[in-house]
């Protein structure tokens, strides 16, 4: 059946994903308009990372459709998938830097391998992006294992923005960082948003969410149970959202002992 092309930059329609008997995404619907910064909040193990990995094709959903620029990319493979991925940048929770490469080559990796940019030119761009995240050229020559957690996150961010992607995903961008470093990362994300990049961040850091989001959505039991402008999060009228943002143990969300 033909579907009308979506105007959203990224759209998920009824996406389902399960691991064995455990249902992780249960008909998830979400749309991100171009240039918007959407933050998805939710407890640990609610499927936030799985959602991002389904969009990127790292995981294959069992049901539903995923659209990027109105094109169904749910089961796209080969060169078409490579072309789709060139629109994306991604900051992983643990930065996921390649141990075997120096920092500058990590940043330039997508340019050299994914886009065929010459090494010398890619190195210049990498140094420029490192400077944008506040890291000097001397850091470019270090190995990722020589960096602190905060610096690794900044390198991860430099890698995510290296090719000036249209869409950037941030997976728990501030988790494990001290409050000052977390704010540095938040500022950098706000700067990327300012140039018109569409961003999707997943976090349970409410301070970060309030700073970087245009809209916030809450994921619970594989579905979006509430979404709205950031300014409305404190008056959502949704007991699940209220419990989550106020960090209360009592409420409709019961912590599952087993995943």
């Amino acid at each position, binding site marked *: 059946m033909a579907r009308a092309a979506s105007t959203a930059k990224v759209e998920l329609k009824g996406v389902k994903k399960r691991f064995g008997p455990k249902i992780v995404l249960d008909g998830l619907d979400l749309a991100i308009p171009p240039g918007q910064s959407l933050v998805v909040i939710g407890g640990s193990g609610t499927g936030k990372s799985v959602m991002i*990995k389904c969009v*990127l*094709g*790292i995981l294959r959903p069992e049901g539903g459709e995923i659209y990027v620029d109105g094109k169904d990319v749910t089961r796209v493979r080969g060169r078409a998938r*490579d072309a789709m*991925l*060139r629109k*994306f*940048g*991604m900051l*992983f*929770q*643990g930065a*996921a*830097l*390649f*141990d075997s490469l120096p920092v500058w080559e990590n940043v330039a*990796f*997508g340019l050299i*391998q*994914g*886009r065929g940019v010459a090494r010398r030119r890619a190195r210049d761009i990498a140094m420029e992006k490192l400077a944008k995240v506040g890291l000097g050229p001397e850091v470019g020559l270090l190995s990722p294992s020589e960096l602190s957690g905060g610096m690794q996150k900044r390198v991860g961010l430099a*890698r995510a923005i290296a090719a000036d992607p249209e869409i950037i995903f941030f997976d728990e961008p501030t988790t494990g960082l001290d409050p000052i470093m977390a704010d540095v990362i938040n500022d950098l994300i706000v700067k990327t948003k300012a140039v018109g990049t569409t961003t999707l961040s997943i976090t349970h850091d409410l301070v970060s969410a309030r700073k970087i989001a245009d809209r916030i959505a809450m994921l619970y039991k594989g579905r979006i149970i509430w979404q709205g402008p950031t300014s409305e999060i404190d008056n959502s009228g949704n007991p699940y959202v209220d419990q989550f943002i106020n960090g209360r143990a009592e409420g409709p969300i019961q912590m599952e002992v087993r995943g």
Partner: protein
Amino acid sequence: MNIFAAVGRATLGLLLEIGRLSVFMVDAVSSFVRPPIYWSLVLKQIMRIGYFSLPVVGLTAFFTGGVLALQIYIGASRYGAEQFVPTVVLVGILRELGPVIAGLMVAGRVAAAIAAELGTMRVTEQIDALTTLATRPIKYLVVPRLMAAIISMPILVAIADSIGVFGGYIASTETLGFTGAIYLNTTMNALANKDIFSGLIKAVVFGFIIALLGCYNGFNSKGGAQGVGSATTNAVVSSSILILAANYILTNIFNYFNF
């Protein structure tokens, strides 16, 4: 406990694993002929798999050749057939012990290293990061290792063959009282191309098995440190068993065709 259910579960599990390995193998082998091929990574892996395995393979081959000569002498002397020691050492090393000993040593060294490296990359999301940078992990990580193992193993085995025969020569001349010139002359007369090439064909197959199982186990490792540990153990155990099984099958095939 229902014994039939347990056997059935184990059988289904085995078939599932064989199916997954087959799909992985087809994906990897079909990537051999599709660009891009990362030749610099192939060369790097040849150094790691082939060159750095030389000391361990060489030492093992030397002592195996020496012990083989000593043991054959014990058996042959019962029938007054000591003059056949050089020939039997040569054939034993070229056709069986050279490739098998080299295969098992490289399996212990290389399959473990590959599985640990790729396993760590998997659990730290580095393999996912490759995908998001529009680089196919099979092409970037698996194909160079497979190619390097297939190229390196015959060279390693050729060197192991020479050192093994030399080990037999040293044991025979220093301990068993053989004259050096006669030993060498007998060895050269007994040298046949089919003995050399049957061992080298085995080496190619063993190299493929080692890299394939190292990559497969690393690629599919789950969890944290424990998962990487299990992947490493499985890579060594499964590649060692498969090398011995493949050796038996190949020897039968060579015998059938009188090769």
